């Protein structure tokens, strides 16, 4: 049985977002959307997290931060890019300091479009990531028994 689907813990990192997507991410914790129904917890600690949720684009200064957060997470782990900024840089793409979407630094598993991404879309993206986590876990186990 794969329990990772039943209890995905999230680490939310704000790249260089305008805060619009962050508010929507937090909105999914509110009573209206209540992601804890799915066992989702916003941990704020990479060592406990299963899913890295990044809002906003990556800029020159936070490349090492994003990389380190990802490296501190235990396998299996997934990356969800929330908002068009995290996907491609969005309206900030032309800025002198912006590198682009999260996929310039990490391999992204799920892209959630929208500016700002709606809470429904954020939750949908996380649920999509669950399937990916499950596959990753299966692969992990195979590696272990080989």
């Amino acid at each position, binding site marked *: *049985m*794969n*329990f*990772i689907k*039943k*209890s995905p813990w999230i680490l939310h990192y704000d790249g260089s977002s305008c805060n619009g997507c962050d508010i929507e991410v937090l909105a999914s914790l509110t*009573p209206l959307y*209540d992601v*804890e*129904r*799915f*066992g989702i*917890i*916003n*941990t*704020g*600690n990479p*060592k*406990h997290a*299963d899913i890295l949720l990044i809002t906003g684009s990556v800029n020159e200064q936070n490349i090492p931060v994003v990389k380190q957060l990802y490296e501190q997470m*235990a*396998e*299996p782990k997934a990356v969800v890019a929330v908002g068009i900024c995290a996907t491609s840089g969005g309206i900030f793409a032309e800025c002198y300091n912006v590198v682009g979407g999260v996929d310039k630094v990490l391999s992204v598993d799920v892209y959630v479009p929208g500016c700002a991404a709606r809470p429904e879309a954020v939750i949908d993206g996380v649920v999509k990531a669950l399937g990916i986590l499950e596959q990753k*876990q299966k692969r*992990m186990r195979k590696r272990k028994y080989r």
Partner: protein
Amino acid sequence: MFTFILRIIGIIILAPLAGGMLTGMDRVITARMQGRQGPPVLQPFYDVLKLLQKEPIEVNLMHRFYVYIALIFVIFTTVIMLTGGDILLAIFALTLGSIFFVLGGYASNSPYSLVGSERELLQMMAYEPMVLLTGIGLYYADNSFFIKDIVSAQAPAILSLPGIFLGLLFILTFKLRKSPFDLSMCHHGHQEIVQGITTEYSGRDLAVIEITHWYETVIALTLVFVFFATKAPVSYVFAVLACLLAYFLEIVIDNGFARVKWQLALDSSWIITGVLGTVNLIILSFFR
């Protein structure tokens, strides 16, 4: 002898299951209080089973060792208490378990877990006197440190120890890691020092910490149970009801208060201990 071993195995298996169920109910009730639907009741078990399946990350050699030692001492305490053993031994074994847990926090060298460990020590300083007074008070009431004698007394201990019981309820908030006294680590995400002592733990080690907490919940509620149980079997029903009520009260308090500073936590619990605990003991000594 054989049934005794069977009983111990039963306690070791059933106690965390009960603790986990309580935690699950806690999360559902908390969610309902906040107007949310909340996770399934079995969510804590899903969490722990997930953590067991995750990749183990080793910070250093000693780091995880302390957590396992803490678990062993907490299991030992649970077995002593539920087989009706010596309450003093139980209290000190529990303290030893907590100390090892704190050492685990210090072992990682992360600033977050250092702050968490320090606060855990302060918390222990705050609640230990009351726990000790509970043991002493129970001895005054029933002339025995053995739980099996205390729960088979004529009258429930609460009648002679109302003050001590209230004091115990106060410090249960520390033991159950509830707001306003969840300074060292807490179950809600996003607090000011993230996850305190558990910051550097992941995977299986974190699961062990969670299971340790389930045992601790059972231990804390057993202390409540002892105050209500008497020779009559009916009293056991009341005692269990009292335990559930105490737990519910803790959930209400958890949702109603913000975390306090350690100074206030320490002062308030010592004042409560000093006033309720000692006055109760002094009055009791007049009637002996």
